[in-house]
């Protein structure tokens, strides 16, 4: 198991290095300077600015410097605000982004599990069909389109919830709910399939032959065993949450990382784009690694086999 983890961590570092390199050189290829809009600057001032951000050095030197700083976790200075670091911007944005992300994940997982279990237990009934129709909608409709529609109907027309901004718990509801729709749908579908498969196995029949009650068979045997493979879809789901949050923060004017990222794209703030990109990559790669290791730990079949997955 330890060897497996070490191997995976190295692979992860390699992936991150590749992403960092690609990001760096792609940014160098970009036409135009970040200061192109500031026409009033004199040549001397521009030179001074380039000097300050290290843009006058030869590219390989810049690359080495960049990797060196990166190794220490330093993502550089943003172009937008004088003297502010990308790190501080990301840290600032972390709060709201992580909040709605986690809220959406918890709410979505709970509701998704309930839907999935109910659909499986009431297989081929109205409940099953209803849950699966909701699931198809949830998977098909992009969370940001859903968010916009929610904002219009619940926020603007019905005025039940604040339309935007970030001033208290009631401001979390719409963004977190929009994000959670995909989670609900994915988990409900996955759980249903898993449950149906497990309910048809011999060991469920065996448990019933022992005299176990319906409830105990459902909870101790089927739900428990269905939950294990759920872990495998957490990775793709986290990626979807991050993608969705990028846009949803903009729709609801939430001061999170996603909102800053979009702003950075619009004003060509290279260090911020690079920094956020790397941050996202790091997040996703780490989540996938954790999920894989977690799966090995909770499934006894893999645990004892020494992590052959």
């Amino acid at each position, binding site marked *: 198991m330890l060897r497996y983890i070490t191997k995976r961590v190295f692979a992860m570092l390699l992936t991150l290095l590749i992403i960092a390199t*690609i990001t760096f050189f792609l940014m160098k290829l970009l036409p135009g300077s970040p200061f192109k809009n500031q026409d009033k600057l004199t040549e001397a001032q521009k030179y001074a600015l380039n000097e300050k951000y290290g843009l006058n050095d030869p590219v390989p030197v810049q690359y080495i410097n960049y990797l060196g700083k990166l190794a220490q976790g330093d993502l550089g200075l943003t172009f937008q605000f004088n003297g502010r670091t990308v790190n501080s911007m990301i840290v600032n944005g972390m709060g709201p982004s992580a909040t709605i992300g986690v809220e959406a994940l918890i709410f979505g997982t709970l509701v998704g599990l309930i839907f999935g279990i109910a659909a499986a237990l009431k297989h081929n009934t109205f409940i099953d069909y209803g849950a699966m129709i909701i699931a198809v909608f949830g998977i098909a409709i*992009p969370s940001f*389109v859903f968010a916009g529609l929610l904002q219009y109907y619940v926020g603007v027309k019905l005025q039940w919830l604040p339309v935007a901004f970030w001033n208290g718990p009631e401001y979390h509801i719409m963004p977190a709910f929009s994000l959670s729709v995909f989670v609900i749908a994915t988990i409900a579908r996955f759980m249903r*399939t898993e449950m149906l498969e497990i309910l048809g196995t011999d060991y469920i029949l065996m448990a019933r032959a022992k005299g176990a009650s319906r409830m105990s068979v459902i909870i101790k045997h089927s739900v428990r065993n269905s939950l294990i493979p759920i872990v495998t879809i957490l990775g793709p789901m986290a990626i979807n949450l991050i993608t969705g949050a990028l846009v949803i923060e903009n729709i609801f004017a939430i001061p999170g990382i996603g909102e800053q990222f979009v702003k950075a794209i619009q004003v060509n703030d290279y260090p911020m784009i690079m920094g956020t990109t790397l941050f996202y990559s790091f997040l996703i790669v780490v989540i996938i690694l954790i999920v894989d290791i977690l799966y090995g730990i909770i499934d006894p079949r893999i645990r004892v086999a020494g992590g052959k997955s």
Partner: protein
Amino acid sequence: MNVTEKQLTPDLFRPAEQGTEKSDEITKPSISFWQDALRRLRKNRGAMIALFAIIFIIAFSFIAPLFSKYGIDDQELMRSNLPPKIQGLEKIEFLGVNGVDIRGTNPYELKNVPKDQYFWFGTDGLGRDQWVRVWKGTQISLYIAFLAAAIDIIVGVTYGGISAFYGGRTDDLMQRLVEVLYGIPNLVVIILFIIILDPGILSITLAICITGWIGMSRIVRAQVLKLKHQEFVLASKTLGAPNGRLITKHLLPNTLAAIIVSATFTIPGAIFFESFLSFIGLGIQPPTASLGSLISDGFKSLRIFPHLALYPAAVMCILMISFNLIGDGLRDALDPKMRR
């Protein structure tokens, strides 16, 4: 058991005239895999409705713009931000297509638009006919999606097929590369790619494909690896079938189902990413429009002119749901065991 003795006449105890072949008869005609899949797909009501919805939207995206005399970029500030108005339906209040906006005023009268002038989906901030823009936008979105799916199939099938068919070192090397690429979040790659290339139909399509083919190649590789060692392929090989025949007669047809299913899910995925890019300001640039860019622009003035976002959003939702339903239907029909 309810037989009374009287009914049993001695002549009943003669040996019966029957052959054992009778019980061996196969009564049902044999049907091919594809016929069977088609039959299953036809029985899936959701998938059939979805199929008709898609055909309808595709056809309509070409026909509908002809109903308007305006082009996609015919601006006229005098008739900007008009709400939808449809002849015949304008009397029915709750449909909201009577030319009156959400504040209750009628911009058609205020802006002196001719009485016989109808904008079915209203107009945008530059006075362009939203009807034309929505359907042209649908064309663009679908174009990107189908192109992306086609590129995914070509690259993915070739890569996965070669990797699995030749195996050994070739496979090892090719899979190392895929592993590294697979580790990179596609979100990041797509954004970076667009920033460099400048947003456009082709660059957006390429950006979507740059990681998209990997999924396809993995599916194809897994299928071919599985098939390669099955008896019927080995038998054909033992009989001296050349590689070309193995690939075209055995491997490809048996991988086709997985390819089709995977490609069907690529399409909504591409529509999703295209609209995602529009939302973060990296989508199709004006005057061209896509469903994503229309919805994204519409959301900016959602409170005052909801019609700008709602109509393209509706078309997009129908498309996305339909493609997903068809994908599910195809998957269930082609491989009942693959249900997930």
